[in-house]
């Protein structure tokens, strides 16, 4: 298990134990992070699993990948560190990761 903390838009934090090998989105949904809608089930085609990676962690999670660009652009969300959580795989290197979530995905 990998310890990850989600911080909601109102500042409350929700620590979860994420399963290695799953996506960050799947781990969030499985642990009841309700703001992660993931309408398309993890295919980078709805933009409703957006998270903001804490600046200290961006080098580890990496930049927005090519498959994410279209839906992030379409969402109009320009927040620094924005990623689609369905495209981030949980690995031991993410132990202690901090991500913020938007108020809503729409």
């Amino acid at each position: 298990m990998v310890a990850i903390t989600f911080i909601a838009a109102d500042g409350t934090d929700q620590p979860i134990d994420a399963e290695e090998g799953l996506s960050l989105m799947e781990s969030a949904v499985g642990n009841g992070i309700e703001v992660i809608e993931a309408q398309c089930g993890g295919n980078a085609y709805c933009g409703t699993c957006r998270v903001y990676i804490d600046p200290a962690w961006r080098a580890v999670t990496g930049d927005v990948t090519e498959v994410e660009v279209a839906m992030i652009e379409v969402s109009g969300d320009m927040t620094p560190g924005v990623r689609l959580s369905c495209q981030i795989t949980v690995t031991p290197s993410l132990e202690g990761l901090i991500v913020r979530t938007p108020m809503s995905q729409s």
Partner: protein
Amino acid sequence: MSATASVCPAHQGRDDRKSAQIAAANLAPQEGARVVGAFASVREILRSTQVRQAGASADQADLSKPGEISFFFLDGDLHRKRRAAVAGLFAPKTIVTRHQAVMDRTMDEIIAKLRSRGSAPLDELSWQMAVDVAADIIGLTDSDSSENLANRVKAVLDLSMGRSDSWLGKALLTAKIMIRVGAFWKHDLSPAVEARRKHPKNDVISHLVKENYSKKGMIMECLSYGGAGMMTTREFIVMCAWHLFDDPALLERFLTGGEDDQFAILEEILRLDPVVSLLHRRAAAPVEGSAGVMMQEGEVAALSIRDANTDEATTGPCPYELDPDRAKRMKAVGAYMSFGDGPHRCPGAQVALHETRIFLDRLFRLPGIRLVCEPTIIWNRQIQGYELRGAVVACDPA
């Protein structure tokens, strides 16, 4: 082929599916294809970068001319780029800010028509909704009337789904298709293309114009959207209405619940009665999954959406029972595999769910609304899916 779910002890094995019998009797995977039905395996195959579209029409597509075929048949980078170019048309924000207005306007017309006539065939009403919404996304908005557009699209799609085994039959079918496609080009697509050459808009045809698609390419792309978006949604709306007419408690919940609950009901109906039953994929290279090699190079798999949607490993117990709380409980996507998965997953899924919700919410609030004739369920061999015909709804006159 049919899934073998255990009998549910708590509910005497209730089976709420309406299309299971006809599917079991008619489903015909492509010859030589191996049927795969476990949810996890279906998902892994659909998400693999090693698989390609397969099945009757995919095998006929000439991949050396990507500008002349729909992106439905493409794979890899080119496919991703073409999808990305129109992604905005299907985004949740676009549905709220643009498509919802089209859905509301069309529903106003449908309600007015039904109230003035007193009764109407349900699939005619659902077809109007499906066509209007898809036409706006595609950019087919310069036809003489939306009713004529709907009839011409239907004429082409009905024939292209037809089949004849004799040489004369085939020749006649081809000639008829050409005539109908010609009418569609002349009255619908060509005026839309001309209008967009002068004033580009945000729709599929504007994109095709910008990218210099050939006439053939444009026709193929628009008709693919027609088949993928219009025919499927027509059946989905009627299937949902049939379930709701049949189950007063479910209808009550639909009418009193919030939008999220309404979507949960619709998705659960689609899980049980998926419009698309089979997806075919060919392995271009061995497909590795979490449990080892899943497909050998060259192998074709027929992925059974019906089996995947009722796989107890992801649905939990009583997989044939209509339970709108299931997906949330199981932390699953509500429609399960009904919109496919992976790079080809249906881009119009949320559009279809929204238009169906709006259609049914308005229809079932009409005074005196009733189903005066149940639909007959028939099987479309070409698309390997059910069609619901002959349902008639009536309401109190205006």
